[in-house]
């Protein structure tokens, strides 16, 4: 009897969780659409920029490379390996199939 009651209880819970999941799915889809339309909106997209000052303030004194690349550009980071000199080499390579990539060196100076 106890197990039967537990089964009924779980079924009720599953029904509620299913509703919750559907609600999350629809909210997520709506938000993705809203963010997409923001990027397409001519007025909003005109103001979607950050200043060099903003970026320098976000990193305390590092050397910064800002990369502006076409959609679909692939960035690869091989697992660092030890070089002949005994020092690890860290590598990033960028590959675009459609248009040139812009890279800008930014630092406070």
């Amino acid at each position, binding site marked *: 009897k106890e197990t039967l009651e537990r089964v009924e209880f779980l079924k009720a*819970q599953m029904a*509620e969780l299913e509703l919750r999941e559907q609600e999350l799915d629809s909210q997520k889809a709506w938000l993705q659409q809203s963010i997409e339309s923001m990027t397409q909106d001519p007025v909003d997209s005109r103001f979607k920029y950050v200043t060099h000052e*903003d970026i320098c303030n976000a990193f305390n004194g590092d050397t910064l490379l800002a990369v502006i690349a076409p959609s679909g550009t692939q960035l690869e980071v091989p697992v660092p390996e030890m070089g002949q000199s005994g020092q690890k*080499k860290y590598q990033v390579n960028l590959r675009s199939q459609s248009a040139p990539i812009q890279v800008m060196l930014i630092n406070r100076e």
Partner: protein
Amino acid sequence: AQECQNLELEKQKRMERIRQKRAQLQELILQQIAFKSLVQRNQASEASSQAPPPPGSVIQLPFIILNTSVRTVIDCSISNDKCEYLFNFDNTFEIHDDIEILKRMGMSLGLENGKCSPENLRVAKSLVPKSLETYVTGMASGSTHTSSLSGLCGDQDC
């Protein structure tokens, strides 16, 4: 008993899926709020300065940032058509997308780490539709998204 066991397993899976979807939704809410805050800030600064910033001093979204110590030597090779870049660093580096930069600029109003002032919470709520305000309130108080599920399930293993 077998059905009960199957339902328990199915429930755990569904709850884990809901937890992940809720985290993804919260990340999207942060993005929406950060983008809208940025647009509002730039609109206000252009209105006060009566002019857009010089084109060379700003970077349009989307972009990513490679950051490394100022002492790092960076060796860069670029293909003629500028479609391929190869960077060699002699020290560690980090890579961040523009959303991370906006968070560091405070454009997500402290929601990402649960440190949101009442005034910022009011502004954040105004940037999302009413149906999502409960998420914003939850993020502002730093409550983990599992707590909201416990109310739904009502038993210990939540």
